[in-house]
Each structure stands twice: as structure tokens, then as C-alpha cells.
């Protein structure tokens, strides 16, 4: 099993609903968030092109954050989802520095926190909160090993990219372009 997410940069309108949904679902403390939306404009006026991306932890297959964790708190869980066990985390921040996407933060309680692909929901057969709430339905979630899953299907049809693949982390967020 290999969980992954595909996010359509053409459909996203940058409303940040995914951010709020995540904050609510996961009780993310005020001022923090596990996902965020980036708006990038390229080109010279008047030839401009804008891309909207809802970003979060890439649940990398070769995660530097799992490798550098001295206690094993950061680990691979079901379907390659990268998780942090809070009672094993000492809050050394090594994983924060090791993540090229800056996806992690120190929770006010001291342990390190980040996106979990809503594993607690996924286990019950539901979609992650951000995917479920997106008003433009621009996010797809599922198992890449299953050729008929939503995410496999859309990746077959559409062109996509991952973020800084040259960092060697094998990210599992696919941005449809």
C-alpha cells in the first residue's frame, strides 16, 4: 500500500478551506497549520502565470526526517504515511531542519507535529479532512498500488510534478499541472 495525494493546481482557487478543515479536524493550535496554500506568479507583465498549490508534508518515501530522528518517534506508518509518536519525541527539532519542505513545526506542548494524511480518518475509510472539504474537489487521495484508486486514475490521465524531486526524498504529493 502506498498512500499519496494528487492536487490539481488548475482547479484550486486558493480559498484555504483545506487549511481550516485541517486545523479543526486535528485540533491544530492557533497560529499553526499543517497545510498551507502557496500562490506563485511567474513571468513578466502582462504575460503572467499563476499557480496555486495546497502544500503539506509530502510523506516522502525516502524521508530525511525519519532517518535523522534519534528516538524513532518519526516513523513510517500504514501505506508509507510518515507519523510522529508524541510520547517518543524529545523535541530536538532535527527533523524540522531535515525537511526540505519545512512541513514540520514544534507543537506548543513540545513535541513535533505535522500532517498525518488524517490517518485516523483513512483507517475508517474516510478521506483526509482537506480532501473531503475542498469546494472545487481539486484533491485526490488514495493508494497508488491500487491501479483503480482515485489518485492512480487521475495520475494516469494528467500531467503532474512533484516538489524538488532532486532533493531525493521521493515525495508523495503530486501536483497536477
Amino acid at each position, binding site marked *: 500500500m502506498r498512500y499519496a495525494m494528487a492536487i490539481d493546481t488548475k482547479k484550486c482557487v486558493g480559498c484555504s478551506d483545506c487549511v481550516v478543515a485541517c486545523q479543526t479536524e486535528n485540533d491544530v493550535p492557533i497560529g499553526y497549520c499543517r497545510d498551507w496554500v502557496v500562490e506563485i506568479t511567474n513571468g513578466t507583465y502582462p504575460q503572467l502565470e499563476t499557480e496555486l498549490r495546497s502544500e503539506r508534508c509530502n510523506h516522502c518515501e525516502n524521508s530525511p526526517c525519519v532517518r*535523522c530522528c534519534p*528516538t524513532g518517534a518519526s516513523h513510517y506508518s500504514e501505506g508509507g504515511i510518515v507519523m510522529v509518536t508524541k510520547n517518543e519525541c524529545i523535541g530536538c527539532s532535527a527533523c*524540522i531542519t*531535515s525537511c526540505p519542505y519545512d512541513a514540520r513545526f514544534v507543537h506548543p506542548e513540545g513535541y513535533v507535529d505535522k500532517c498525518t494524511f488524517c490517518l485516523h480518518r483513512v483507517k475508517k475509510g474516510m478521506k483526509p479532512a482537506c480532501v473531503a472539504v475542498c469546494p472545487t474537489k481539486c484533491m485526490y487521495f488514495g493508494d497508488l498500488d491500487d491501479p483503480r484508486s482515485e489518485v492512480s486514475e487521475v495520475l494516469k490521465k494528467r500531467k503532474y510534478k512533484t516538489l*524538488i524531486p532532486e532533493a531525493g526524498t521521493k515525495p508523495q504529493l503530486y501536483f497536477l499541472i
Partner: protein
Amino acid sequence: MREEIIVSGRNNPLIDPQLHVWHWEIPTYLFLGGLAAGLLFFAALYYLRGKENEYRTAVKIAPMLAPIALALGLIALFLDLHHKLYFWRLYTTIRLESPMSWGAWTLMIVTPVSIIWSALHIKELFPNWDWKFDFAKELIGFFQKKKKVLAWIMLISSAILGVYTGILFSAFNARPLWNTSIMGPLFLASGLSAGSAVVIWMSKNHAERKRFAQLDLMIIGIELFLIIHMFMGFLASTQVQIDAVNLFLGGPYTAQFWGFVVILGMIVPAILEGLELKGYKIPVAIPVVLVLFGSVMLRFIISNAGQASRWLY
């Protein structure tokens, strides 16, 4: 023109101007660890070479500072942890891929060894010292007999400790400025240089001071050599690493790096030590303080500049 707007976000360099999660604690810990490594390395080396009476300060007296440095370093590390009550989790597992884990376990070996080594030589400082209890005397007697083994353990573990202080940085490819294997040897050399500077400072024996001044000069030469190679490697690398090293070549860390680390921390003390070896009278404290200052600054500047370097996407 490329413009990036983040609608929401945290811990993202465009919101928090740069990712900065390691503050003064980690560089302080790395400096003290490196200093202790330098002191213990020379103590073990010259003991094993049978020079314990010739280089009495290096073998018997200066290493007594090591447990103090290690204890202060561990306090600094502890202060850096955000989930302090779970500190012990470091010691329920060994993770070979994690430099932090290597460091924690190396300290677990180096610290007791340095304490035993200091206990064996405590009479050098306090001639009337008395190990009041019999078991303490027996223990000291036991280690006295095994001193050679102890010295070997100390030699190897202190070298690992010294290299580790740099590997902790170089293992992170997410921070391009740190991501060079030169960091290991560079930080080891910096720790050895700091250790030999302390010996020069503490020693009353002319021959010993001369020996360590020569050693320090050589180590500073090696450090400069490593720094030049670091720059060559970066400039011949990918765009992210070129951007990263430009933090030191015109970027915001240029003056600090060249001024504090290279000129004040290496070149000036090297010249002063060289002049002293030639017979000029130079107050020994000046090069020593400069070397220690340079060693501290190296850690701080690499730590801060590294966190300001990032992949672009």
C-alpha cells in the same frame, strides 16, 4: 519575475523570514563537545605515546576540564529540547542513521571515561586528595591498571565526538550550506585547535607550550585548507549549493565568517603563535582567546547561515 504569496502557513521561510529552529543551544553544545573532544584526544594520544610526564598538563590536568565542558554542553542540549520530559527516549534505542543518536551514545561513553580519567589524576591538582572510602580506592586502583585500555577508548571516542559535531550539520541535505562532508573533519580540527589552545594556556612548561603551539599552527593550516576545499566544492556544485555558499561570498554572513572565523579565529592567532615560536614575547592569552573565539563563532555562524539556506521551489 517570480512572486510567491503564501495564503497561509507557518514555519515557512516566506512567513517566518527564515527557518530558525536551532538557536544558541546547539552551537554551544557543539563547541563544548568539540573542545572536550580536543582535550581528551591529546590526553589519550600523549599518554599512549609515553609522554605523560613531559606533557603533564595535556595528559593529566587539562582533560579535567572535559567533564565540565561536557556537562555544560549537555545542559545546553537539554535546554534545546522542547519535549524535555522525554529526554530518556534517546537511550531506549540506537539509530545508526541519525547523527543525534550517534552523538547521544558517544557522549554516554565519553562522559564517564573523562570523569574516570580526571579522577585518576586528581592528585596532580590536589596532592592531599583522599578517596575516603575503600571501594573508591579499589575502583581507582582498578582503572589505574587498565589505564591503557581506557586511553584507547578515549582516543577513539573523542575522535568520533569531534567528527560528530560536524556530521550533525552535514547530514541534512535540506540545508544546502551544511550538506558537505567537509563539516566533519572541519569541526574535528576546530575542536582539536581549541583543545590545544587550552593546553597552551594552562601549561607552565616551556617545551610543552612550544609543542602545542606547533600543533595548533598545523591544525589551523589544516582548517584553512578544509575551508578552501569547502568553497571549491560548493562553487562547483548545484545552484542551491552555489546560492548557499554565496551567504559567505557577498551575502549577509560574509563579514562575520571571514572576519570572526577566518581572520580573527585562525589567521591572527596563527601569526601570533608563529611569532612566539620565533622568540617574540607575546602574551599567551591573546592567541588562545582568539582561537577559542574563532571556534565558537564557527559553530554559531555555520548553524545560523545553514538554517538560512534552503532549496528553492
